[in-house]
């Protein structure tokens, strides 16, 4: 536990001592902020128009659901932005240590490979949690000017956390395969994109194959969270995805040891 904590502490510090954390957080917030503004102004315009129409026909103004019309698309957008930014968070975790040779220190110290791996993974989760927590500020604006339901927001953030955790687990895996950070980030991005879009082809193949492909789609499982539904089957899906990523990372580290490769 102390070893895990030491690795975690070093990795988190290293994120926040280098510009990387700030750059990733800044751009993630900037892009989400712009989209939040666009979605929200669109929503305000729509509700204004609906109110005017209602007045024209002397009807009750309709109650537009801010959860459905603003928050849900916003959560989907953030899931997409995380796809772009999280590979940048994990790319250095192993690749940099392999390049500089510090991996030799970790692998000859009395810490287990899984302690190192979990320390690194948790550090990436901490940074991602900070990113998510800061976007929560946007939601606070909605509470000031409207009455959104808190439940679906929280379940949406839980979904984002699990989805991002899956990205990070495979990011860690790809980082463990190479000493080149660019290659690590690019392959992570390509891999996640594949599993993101895998459900799209379901229309072109037979129904049974389509259902299987859809099941593997990362984003397919997210929709229920965004709607406010917490279904264990989705949680299990994301957790198994995370487990798979970490398991492959572990195998890759062990294999590098046996091969004597870095």
């Amino acid at each position, binding site marked *: 536990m*102390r*070893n895990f904590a*030491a*690795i975690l*502490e*070093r990795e988190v*510090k*290293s994120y926040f*001592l*280098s510009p990387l954390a700030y750059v990733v957080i800044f751009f993630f917030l900037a892009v989400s902020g712009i989209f939040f503004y666009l979605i929200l102004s669109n929503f305000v315009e729509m509700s204004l128009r609906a109110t005017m129409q209602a007045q024209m026909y002397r009807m009750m103004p309709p109650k537009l659901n801010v959860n459905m019309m603003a928050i849900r698309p916003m959560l989907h957008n953030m899931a997409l932005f995380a796809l772009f930014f999280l590979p940048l968070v994990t790319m250095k975790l192993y690749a940099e240590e392999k390049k*500089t*040779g*510090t*991996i*030799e*220190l*970790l*692998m*000859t*110290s*009395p*810490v*287990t490979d899984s302690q190192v791996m979990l320390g690194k993974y948790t550090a990436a989760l901490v940074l991602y949690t900070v990113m998510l927590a800061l976007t929560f500020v946007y939601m606070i604006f909605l509470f000031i000017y409207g009455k959104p339901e808190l439940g679906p927001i929280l379940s949406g953030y839980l979904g984002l956390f699990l989805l991002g955790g899956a990205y990070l687990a495979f990011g860690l895996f790809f980082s463990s395969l190479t000493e080149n950070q660019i290659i690590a980030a690019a392959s992570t991005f390509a891999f996640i994109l594949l599993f993101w879009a895998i459900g799209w082809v379901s229309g072109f193949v037979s129904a049974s194959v389509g259902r299987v492909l859809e099941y593997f789609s990362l984003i397919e499982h997210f929709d229920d969270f965004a709607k406010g539904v917490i279904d264990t089957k989705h949680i299990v899906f994301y957790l198994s995805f995370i487990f798979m990523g970490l398991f492959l990372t572990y195998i890759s580290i062990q294999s590098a*040891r*046996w*091969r*004597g490769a870095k």
Partner: protein
Amino acid sequence: MIEVKHLSRNFGAVQAIQDISFEVQKGEIVGFLGPNGAGKTTTMRILTGYIPATSGTAKVAGFDVQEQSLEVRKRIGYMPENPPVYADMTVDQYLNFVAKIKGVDGKVRKSKVDEAMEKVGITDVGKRLIKHLSKGYRQRVGLAQALVHDPEVLILDEPTIGLDPKQIREVRTLIKGLAGQHTVILSTHILPEVSMTCQRVIIINKGKVVAEDTPDNLTARLAGNERLVMEVEGPADAVTQTLQAVPGVQNISVDRANGDGRIQLTVESSAGTDLRKELARTVVNNGWGLLELRPVEMSLEDVFLHLVTEEEEVAN
């Protein structure tokens, strides 16, 4: 303290080390000598638990490096060839982190870190970022890192590489000072380093141990024939022929024959004989000029080259 038996390691089709066996007693300083690519680093990496061996066993302080890797790693301080330092940390932060993962207790951590920094002389750069340090200082941070948990065994891969002459001397003195309390294995391809710091030398070439002894014994044992260097003024052919006839001379080779009548010769005779008087008398009696006559001691360098070349001939 360290017991290596029939250790081999392959990388694909390449055999990095083959059937290496040796022992190191507690408190000894042992030098690993060998040309680049001889298998020094591979052997050290197996001992530190960085990579497993293909076959054979190695024990450190009674623990098997493969089966009880964590126990072994607790007792080893390892400095790889490139110091494993995090550029974005300060020296203090870095050593503190290393102390933590090496299992140094929180209460004594600070004093242990200070102690290690003092030993290698980096107390004044504690607050500096490692990326701003010179190569020599980084090397010493790497050494401090290996010492911080006061390990029983120190494994140092080319510890003086990249240092300036003054620092090299300091590091050698430091390593010598570790004898007794720590068991040290250091690798190098710089020969004087071995004769200066190590009590015992293991020469490795092409993945095999070719010799193992104290530096003095090695030179004595492998010196074999006595050799003398002579410089004589006289006709080259006549001189060699006459000297060849001196009883006890086994072989004469002309190293240099300038046109000015001076020739330089190497005279070999069997071990334990001293032909200086005979040779001098012969030269003078023939009316030639004796300009120089001195015995050649075989240096560790010669021994090393001798062994390495021999090995090559066998392979060919």
